């Protein structure tokens, strides 16, 4: 990790960036996001298997933007989110310095978003077999049993919106849930509102989600909401071909193909 610390220091010293977003020591044995503005603080940076938070979420927050140009510590899920944000015109290459971290915890420097894309070619999004099995098991249930299963899973949700706050792609300044004319999603936490919120969240991420699981990790009640986005990712691949964030590509639901196939429209 010395390389990363040295690099962060030199970037701050040369004033190439004004803030380094990385992982540092949190409470107990946890890690947390840290924002370094002074070269001498860079020794606090660390990287290990506990660093699962998706730091890309901070790139679009105005509190962080206001600190100046950032350098960001970016393991693979963060790299994917950066590409997706760039594809949605939320980031420019000149906006940030990407300090990539390979699966072997080696520092990789990227000259451009194109270079990130080339790197990710060899690290494609793959849904874990155990999740595939769970999704298949849920889909095999009879329809009312499936509904009852999800109602039980969604019941503990109290709409803290941590899933939204943790997601790098939920960057709308005003979310649909904050809309009250009309009130699309009831604010109280009851089953109908919970269901509508999670359907809406999943639909707004359809064809955009990069499968970082930040939403599930952030959920204080451990609701398996990542299964919804994972299943949609499978659907995107099944209907619209291989999927992965790419700067030049339009989102699945903002584009179309006249030859899209379905079997349910008469």
């Amino acid at each position, binding site marked *: 990790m010395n390389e990363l610390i040295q690099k962060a220091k030199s970037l701050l010293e040369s004033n190439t960036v004004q803030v380094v977003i990385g992982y540092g020591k949190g409470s107990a044995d946890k890690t947390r996001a840290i924002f370094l503005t002074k070269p001498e603080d860079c020794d606090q940076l660390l990287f290990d298997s506990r660093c699962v938070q998706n730091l890309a979420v901070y790139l679009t927050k105005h509190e962080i933007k206001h600190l100046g140009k950032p350098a960001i510590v970016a393991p693979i899920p963060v790299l994917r989110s950066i590409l997706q944000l760039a594809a949605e015109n939320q980031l420019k290459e000149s906006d940030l310095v990407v300090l990539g971290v390979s699966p072997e915890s080696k520092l990789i420097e990227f000259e451009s978003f194109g270079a990130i894309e080339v790197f990710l070619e060899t690290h494609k999004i793959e849904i874990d077999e155990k999740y595939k099995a769970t*999704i298949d098991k*849920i*889909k095999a*249930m009879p*329809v*009312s*049993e*499936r*509904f*009852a*299963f*999800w*109602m039980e899973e969604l019941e503990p949700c109290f709409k803290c919106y941590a899933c939204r706050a943790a997601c790098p792609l939920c960057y709308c300044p005003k979310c*649909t849930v904050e809309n009250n004319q009309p009130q*699309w999603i009831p604010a109280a936490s*009851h*089953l*109908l509102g919970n*269901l*509508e919120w999670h*359907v*809406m969240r*999943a*639909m707004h991420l*359809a*064809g955009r989600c990069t499968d970082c699981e930040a939403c599930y990790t952030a959920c204080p009640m451990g609701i398996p909401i990542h*299964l*919804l986005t994972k*299943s*949609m990712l499978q*659907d*995107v691949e099944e*209907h*619209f071909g291989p999927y992965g964030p790419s700067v030049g590509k339009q989102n*699945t*639901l*903002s*584009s*179309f*193909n*006249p030859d*899209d196939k*379905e079997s*349910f*429209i*008469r």
Partner: protein
Amino acid sequence: MTEFEPKIVAFVCNWCTYAGADLTGTSRIKYAQNVKIIRFPCTGRIDFMLLLKAFGEGADGIIVSGCHPNDCHYTSGNFHARRRWIMFRGLLDLLGIDVRRIQYSWVSAAEGAKWADVVNTTVTAIRELGPYTDYAKVANYLEKEANV
């Protein structure tokens, strides 16, 4: 006991299906009265949340209908809508919301008879499925609490 009469909400586009439904009437074709039609500028405007709201307000079935592919008044609205429906249907199915209760169709302004057929077959199908009690139980959370 009277027979169950399904409540069906139809979300249709202004240019094709609404005109098609109009033609059904002017052609004096009789069809089931269970359907309440809501007119939209385009199928691309039919937000997925509206479908959930319809179920939440007590609909037993939903029809979503618009222009055939390549016939959209706005060129590509129905192509976008089609992608959205494909994704939405997959999500609803995973969540255990009964996708058999949502009928999607393309009905052009010239297909008055097809509209009557779409409505009739949907009404028959929903009548067989019965009232959508699973969703109603969730939607009527206030009544449930009042009864406790």
